[in-house]
């Protein structure tokens, strides 16, 4: 690791102002992405501003038809939150599948979506549930937030404070874990909104990051059941291919995981 200066912010405003004062600062949440990268000397921020202890940034709340997860809430808290399990069980289930216990105790939803790894879990939930990303400056619809591999709509120094999810009528998540990293080799989140819209998002599959899957949405709109997808074929073009999965395999997984997610959603 290169030399760096650590700051522990006690409020969002303090964090933003610390960021403004340093030459090349990075926010730190759970550190599950940033710290390994720093240890490998692939990043060398002059200052590290810890958001993880800001009280206003931690917690899971439900009000009316909205579930709000504050940005520095660790995955473990979401996975075990009664509020989350009651409002959107598929989301709590998704959080329980992230990495391993050590990663879940530390890693946060804000860090996960800010990083926007093409195989991360949360982005699929945000996109399928039509969530809104709240920052210290504005609100961004999930569909506008994710901009391809490791890229988001966040501006320099902008802090995610929370993510709010409209509670759906039904939702399900199915994940094929990457055998080594345990990220998604491919995972699919399916949701039926209370207004009857069908939204399906796949992560780990596309070369351009998390994506909606139109063909599956259309088929499920006609018939919300796993068998509705039997005859669907997902094209392999544009999908990721690596030592753990060819593009054809991932195309198959998009369909199979969608079927299992629908089955889980009921």
């Amino acid at each position, binding site marked *: *690791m*290169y030399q760096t200066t650590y700051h522990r912010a006690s409020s969002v405003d303090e964090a933003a102002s610390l960021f403004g004062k340093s030459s090349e600062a990075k926010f730190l949440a759970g550190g599950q992405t940033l710290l390994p990268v720093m240890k*490998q*000397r692939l990043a060398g921020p002059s200052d590290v501003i810890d958001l993880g202890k800001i009280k206003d940034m931690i917690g899971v709340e439900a009000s009316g038809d909205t579930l709000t997860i504050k940005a520095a809430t660790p995955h473990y808290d979401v996975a075990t939150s009664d509020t989350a399990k009651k409002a959107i069980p598929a989301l709590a289930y998704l959080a329980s599948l992230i990495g*391993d216990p050590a990663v879940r105790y530390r890693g946060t939803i804000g860090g996960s979506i800010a990083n926007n790894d093409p195989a991360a879990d949360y982005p699929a939930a945000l996109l399928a549930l039509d969530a809104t990303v709240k920052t210290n400056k504005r609100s961004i619809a999930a569909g506008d937030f994710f901009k391809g591999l490791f890229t988001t709509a966040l501006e320099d120094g902008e802090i995610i404070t929370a993510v709010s999810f409209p509670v759906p009528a039904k939702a399900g998540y199915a994940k*094929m874990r990457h*055998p*080594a*990293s345990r990220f998604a*080799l491919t995972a699919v989140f399916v949701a039926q909104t209370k207004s009857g819209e069908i939204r399906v998002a796949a992560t780990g599959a596309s070369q351009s990051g998390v994506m909606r899957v139109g063909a599956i949405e259309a088929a499920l709109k006609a018939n919300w059941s796993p068998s509705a997808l039997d005859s669907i074929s997902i094209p392999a073009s544009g999908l990721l291919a690596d*030592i*753990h*999965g*060819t593009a*054809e*395999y991932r195309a*198959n*997984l998009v369909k*199979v995981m969608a*079927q*299992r997610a629908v089955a889980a959603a009921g």
Partner: protein
Amino acid sequence: MGVEGIGARVVRKEDKRFITGKGRYVDDIKLLGMTHAHFIRSPHAHARVKGIDSSAALKMPGVVAVLTGQQLVDDKVGNLICGWAITSKDGSPMKMGAWPAMAPETVRFVGQAVAVVIADSKNLARDAAEAVVVDYEELPAVADMHAAIKAGAPQLHPEAPGNQVYDWVIGDEGAVSAAFSKAANVVKLDVTNNRLAPNAMEPRAAIADYDAAEEHFTLYTTSQNPHVARLVLSAFYNIAPEHKLRVIAPDVGGGFGSKIFIYPEEMVALWASKKVGRPVKWTGDRTEAFLTDAHGRDHVTHAEMAFDASNKIIGLKVKTYANFGAYMSLFSSSVPTYLYATLLSGQYNIPAIHAEVIGVYTNTTPVDAYRGAGRPEASYLIERLMETAARQLKVDPAQLRRTNFITQFPHQTPVIMAYDTGDFNASLDAAMKAIDYAGFAARKAQAKSQGKLRGIGVSCYIEACGIAPSKAVGSLGAGVGLWESAEVRVNPVGTIEILTGSHSHGQGHETTFCQLVADRLGVPISQVSIVHGDTDKVQFGMGTYGSRSAAVGLTAILKAMEKVESKARKIAAHALEASEADIVIENGEFKVTGTDKAIAFPMVALAAYTAHNLPDGMEPGLKESAFYDPTNFTFPAGTYICELEVDAGTGKTSFVNFVAADDFGRLINPMIVEGQVHGGLVQGIGQALLEHAIYDANGQPVTASFMDYAMPRADDVPSFNLSHTTTLCPGNPLGIKGCGEAGAIGASAAVINAITDAIGKNNLEMPATPDRVWRTINAA
């Protein structure tokens, strides 16, 4: 046996310090004035080093020195050696390219060191390493074995034309041809044994400390065999004579073979500590472990097995290409030859065997012994062949094995090994019963009705352990003898220190070795301590690998114990005024049989040291040593059966049951044996389902971190169902065969046999990743 004797499930003595974080590993050691080394490693798989400019680095804070490969040459430090000479079929010796500890001219794999920065801290050394400019001229590289032996392939070493290390044969080719010409059926199989990265939990590390006044070096290092390290470092590398070099291997966090070898880093640390006049520490990180710890396996094999009309095997021919990586590591040459091809008879009566092994250089990390070393490759091949044959001949796979089992012992195979004892039917029966083999068809049908693909796979492995008779291995080209040594020191108060040449890095010697003493003398194991891993304390010994520590190391202790007991008996007889023949040892006392006269063992010890009343002419003291050279290998064997389900939609495998019935001869501590089997099975399953060290065509490693290299985790493996059948090994007095590698040797074939059974297609390579299984299911 007693509560702590042989056969007792004694809790491991060493675990208290390990689980409370009090183990003492090399990286825990800090010496006064210690510097830190950071190696500068090649990012290229093949390149010429045209120049190294360290001028900027040398001006950076805390930098003590930047040393290069050329300086090693200038100081006449020797190249790394390979300690087992193999002769090709044309009579020529194996062709070895020179391997300098840091490359002065040419780098041949990604991660090979070219220079080292020595600085006041690890971080400063890393900072300075970034300022060292190495001018590389990239050369064409080759990582694939078959590409490497093609005409026109990039050449690694001028000494080895065509990138061929050797072309070695074993067995009777004529007898095999004759068998094939009269075969009723011939079964053919191509298999790849995937390359693995060992990944011991503790990365390699070294601290070298040169004492200029005494001209003496101390090396703390992560070694499975500190004496061998000292021997090699002094005899071949010109660093220090043996009596001026102390090697200490303190607690070592796993080795699996990868810490047998002498690596460049410890040599450089020693040399550098003298050059800079301060202790030098190097602790590898996980990336360095992936790049530089010797890898394992990496064979490509074509094999054919001939059967007569009654399904008896009449011949076997095998052709194997073995990838050695860029250099020949310490024992590498022996692995695909004498540790592999000599076990191609498996558990079967095969009258004629011929094998040819072609060793190949590629621009990849060197390959050497890894848990099982050659024997997993042999066992996997034979057990895949047997399963393939059963499918082709349409007979039950267990029955086909039974038809061909060796049942008479001793049995001389056509490939050197003479099996001393075994009962292969007993372990097969035990495993079949444990898994309810007879009920499998019904379970498969039941699973099918629920849309699941269920399969069962058998693997009957045999291995040669307890390595090894020195004369035998010497005649096969080994550069060392493979005996073991022990010294038993009884203290005047009756506590006992056992000095052993074996080294424990996870095996539990501090417990099992004490159990032998408890068994013989009836003293509690708390009164016994095991001393190992320090060349200044312990007499010369050969270390731990090849499941040899109990069969060879413990037998040496037994031999020394017998001498101690014999002397103690004389002392006791003298003190009790009885005849030596009437003395029996019971519960820590020396008794006159049939009387109530007795003397406690500590009193015997005290008598030996006070020497006030010893038999005439007896030397004072109670301390004996022994060197034990085994008369044969030992032959642990057993049957593993695995039942699993494959998810046709994803290709993912889930275990239903995994049973192991092993014959390890006598068990010293069944709990520790089970732990060894669990670990071995997990490694075998890891190879079958998850692990693969991959290079791209240019020799760039694709799997150099745990994000890409899939290590098995607890939830990847089932809860194992273990049992033992026992035939005592006749070759050593305790009847021990060894248990350290069995799991890794036998498990992979059981898994692949079961998956291929489940999916109804026989051709499937390891690792059987979900993607690969899914593609195999859906292949036309």
